[in-house]
């Protein structure tokens, strides 16, 4: 008798699993996590949680939402067995929005232009020398530590905003996936280090703080600068745009020299 009971229960379980009705059954779970929408929703939910955490910690740079959520998402993808390419495909919408958002940066730039005009010369000089130093220091350190050529080329555009950096990396023979990741993490690291740098240099002027964030930490630094102050944000936007244009125009011509 008990044997028969177990058998029927097992049969029933198998039936339910096949039909995919139970949330715990592999069919539902597999079809759920492999929907493109799942990847996008994962990004949005984790980022929202990271934002709450960031605000709860008083917007301290070391709990930057991009840093916290990228680690969390990478861990979840590895645990659930979703491939990165599948995840990225699902997040096409966010990548698409980077374009119109870049265009939208014209508005703060226009509104704060009167501040910028007064400092035109220091801005242009800092972008040229600071931008060159950012590329040279990254490549120099990685070369010293024995990286191969492709890694060096992928690191060169690290302080430039992602769409420009990918274009430049492909142009000079770097690895686009490495460049993208390095660029984003350079942005995060720039934001994490910014309180230390501002303290060491006694840099309190919001215009100068914005410049440093936009120049070294591109879009992520610019987003941080807007949190500090709108003028800071406009300066970051300008530094990011100028550095991007400067690097895009010069790097493809400098690399063949080495």
């Amino acid at each position, binding site marked *: 008798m008990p044997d028969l009971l177990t058998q029927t229960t097992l049969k029933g379980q198998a039936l339910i699993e096949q039909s995919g009705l139970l949330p715990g059954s592999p069919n539902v779970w597999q079809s759920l996590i492999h929907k493109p929408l799942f990847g996008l929703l994962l990004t949005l939910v984790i980022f929202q949680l990271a934002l709450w955490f960031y605000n709860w910690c008083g917007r301290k740079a070391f709990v930057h939402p991009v840093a916290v959520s990228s680690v969390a998402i990478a861990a979840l993808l590895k645990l659930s067995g979703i491939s990165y390419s599948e995840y990225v495909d699902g997040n096409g919408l966010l990548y698409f929005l980077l374009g119109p958002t870049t265009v*939208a940066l014209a508005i703060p730039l226009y509104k704060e232009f009167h501040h910028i005009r007064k400092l035109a010369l220091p801005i242009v000089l800092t972008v040229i020398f600071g931008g060159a130093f950012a590329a040279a220091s990254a490549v120099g350190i990685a070369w010293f530590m024995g990286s191969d050529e492709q890694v060096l080329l992928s690191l060169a555009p690290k302080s430039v905003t992602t769409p420009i950096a990918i274009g430049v990396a492909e142009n000079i023979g770097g690895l686009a996936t490495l460049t993208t990741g390095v660029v984003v993490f350079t942005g995060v690291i720039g934001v994490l280090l910014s309180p230390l740098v501002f303290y060491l240099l006694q840099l309190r002027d919001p215009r100068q703080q914005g410049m440093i964030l936009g120049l070294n930490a591109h879009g992520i630094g610019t987003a941080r600068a807007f949190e500090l102050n709108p003028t800071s944000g406009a300066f970051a936007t300008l530094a990011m745009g100028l550095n991007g244009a400067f690097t895009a125009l010069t790097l493809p011509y400098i690399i063949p020299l080495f």
Partner: protein
Amino acid sequence: MLKALIALLFFQLCGETLVSVLHSPIPGPVAGMLLLWIALAIKGGPSKDLDQVSHTLIQYLSLFFLPAGVGLFFLPASVQQYWPAILAAMLVGTLASMLFSGFLMKRLSAKKAGAE
């Protein structure tokens, strides 16, 4: 909101067309930003709608980078052996260049203020 999105996408398209016609290495959206900036200077400022939508988009700028950032944890095996060098270049390189550019900006702005 729709009018603002149309304006932003229109300028992005103009920027991308301009860049491909000129064979410029500057990305289309950056060229679009410059074109919109010129248009705003001629028109005398953004509409309230465009101002609000832009503000919302910029607020989430770092979210749009997130999927790309996750890619750093999924690098091809050929690159993984260079992890320490990549990490050092990002950490030390960024700290050094932030200190350098901060110092430069501070000195140059101080000179400028002194000269005026």
